[in-house]
């Protein structure tokens, strides 16, 4: 225990650097995942058949072990000289994020009270106005919950990205294992947990702030 504490204090600067890398990796992946997943989820509400297919695919995606996914991507991305490192890691995280984000967006928009949707149409809102003023605001808490879930999941999976050289806190675990240094592995694991808990708390606050007052 004492040893672990000493290790973390001694390597403070290094751990901070890895933490920032980790945040960068997950942050970028989630921003891109939102940019893809939310519009896609909204679009799917207009096409039930496609919705089922896409949600199934996202479901399957999330069951692929991350190591295997990296394994598949290495030869493909090698074609553009990005087989290992930051790029494949971000892509993998984006893919994993799709299920919670698309699913929550889809379900949230679908579940907006039909009377409210009807009122929006009935007073003369067009499709975009209806989405922007009524459907998205009312769906926001559930969409945010999906994003939060994706972020937490990605902080965990992001640790494995170190195996393909993407950096982040996984490096501690990776190197710890190869050097049989349990302290280092533990330090990495603990740092990741703390990061996950802290981010979850922050996002919880953010979610509260984003929720329209009338829905509380």
């Amino acid at each position, binding site marked *: 225990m004492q040893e672990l504490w000493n290790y973390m204090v001694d390597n403070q600067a290094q751990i901070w650097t890895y933490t920032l890398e980790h945040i960068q990796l997950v942050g970028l992946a989630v921003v891109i995942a939102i940019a893809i997943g939310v519009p896609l989820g909204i679009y799917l509400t207009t096409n039930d058949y496609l919705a089922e297919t896409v949600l199934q695919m996202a479901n399957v995606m999330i069951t692929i072990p991350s190591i295997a996914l990296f394994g598949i991507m290495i030869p493909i991305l090698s074609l553009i000289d990005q087989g290992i490192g930051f790029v494949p890691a971000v892509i993998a995280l984006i893919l994993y994020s799709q299920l919670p984000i698309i699913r929550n967006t889809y379900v949230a928009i679908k579940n907006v009270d039909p*009377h*409210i949707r009807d*009122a929006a149409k*009935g007073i003369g809102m067009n499709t975009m106005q209806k989405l922007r003023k009524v459907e998205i*605001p009312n769906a926001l808490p559930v969409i945010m919950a999906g994003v939060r879930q994706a972020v937490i999941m990605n902080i965990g999976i992001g640790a494995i990205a170190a195996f393909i050289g993407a950096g982040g806190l996984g490096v501690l675990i990776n190197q710890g294992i190869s050097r049989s240094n349990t302290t280092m592995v533990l330090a990495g694991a603990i740092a990741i947990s703390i990061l996950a808990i802290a981010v979850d708390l922050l996002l919880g606050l953010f979610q509260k702030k984003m929720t*329209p*007052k*009338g829905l509380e």
Partner: protein
Amino acid sequence: MIDFNHVTKVFNEDIKAVNDISFHVPEGNIVVFLGPSGCGKTTTLRMVNRLESITEGTISVNGNHVNDLNPIELRRNIGYVIQHNGLFPNMTIEQNVMAVPDLLGWDRKKKKDRFHYLMDLVGLNPDEFRKRYPHELSGGQQQRIGIIRAMAADPPVMLMDEPFGALDPIIRSHIQNEFLQIQEEVQKTILFVSHDIDEAIKMGDKVAIFRDGSLMQYDAPDEILAHPTNDFVRKFVGKDRALKSLSLHSVQDLVNEQSLMQASETGKHRKTVFIDTNLKDALSILLNQEAEQLVIQSEEKTIGALTIHDIETYLHEKIM
């Protein structure tokens, strides 16, 4: 103002919700759609602002076929109060009420003035409610907000689907009166769905009675009560239709037709009522309070007295 011309609506190729109905709604009238659940009232209403397509026939508003108009613009020019109020839970009361003016791009000052005017109209304090959310209001308050939201951009036509549905009888009657007062001032052309015969008689300039998608009778309330066209209408308006129709006539109407007897100067079996009292209430007073005669007051003067017998004569000669 609004014309239905052989309008039919078929859902899913085999459910005939509305069956070949035709009628004319004059400008400034309230027409009440009345009938049992599932008879096609809501569907008929929603074809007017194109929330439902018209399978056959035409509907025109102000001489224009609704199918020739842009649906978005059409809806912005027709106030719509939906069954179950449908307020937007994410918006404040002010944002809800100003939803249509917002879409129309009104400036801030104009919106603010309009909000104040409308809130005053339904007796709610604008400053107290402006920043509140729908779930912080009582059912009756929510329905008032639903109504003024539909009136916000001052549309000439309003569609109201059971706007007072979820209210207890006392509040309901209060809001009905309030609404009739507002209507005196604003003179909108209104289609109003109800399944309550008493509400229809009270609110309607005309009443349209539906059964299984067909129009059974379209007439003024007293006409429907006095001369139901068939057994369905007769049953629907109820055995007490004679009594109901008395509520549509005032003592004044009776005085115009019959001469009153002299009010006796003394005696405890007399009650005083004003000339604008309706005959149903007058009769109730005679029955409940065991008065033998009602002394009629008009502008502080006694103009004569009325007995049960006079009301009966009037009912038989003028109403039924």
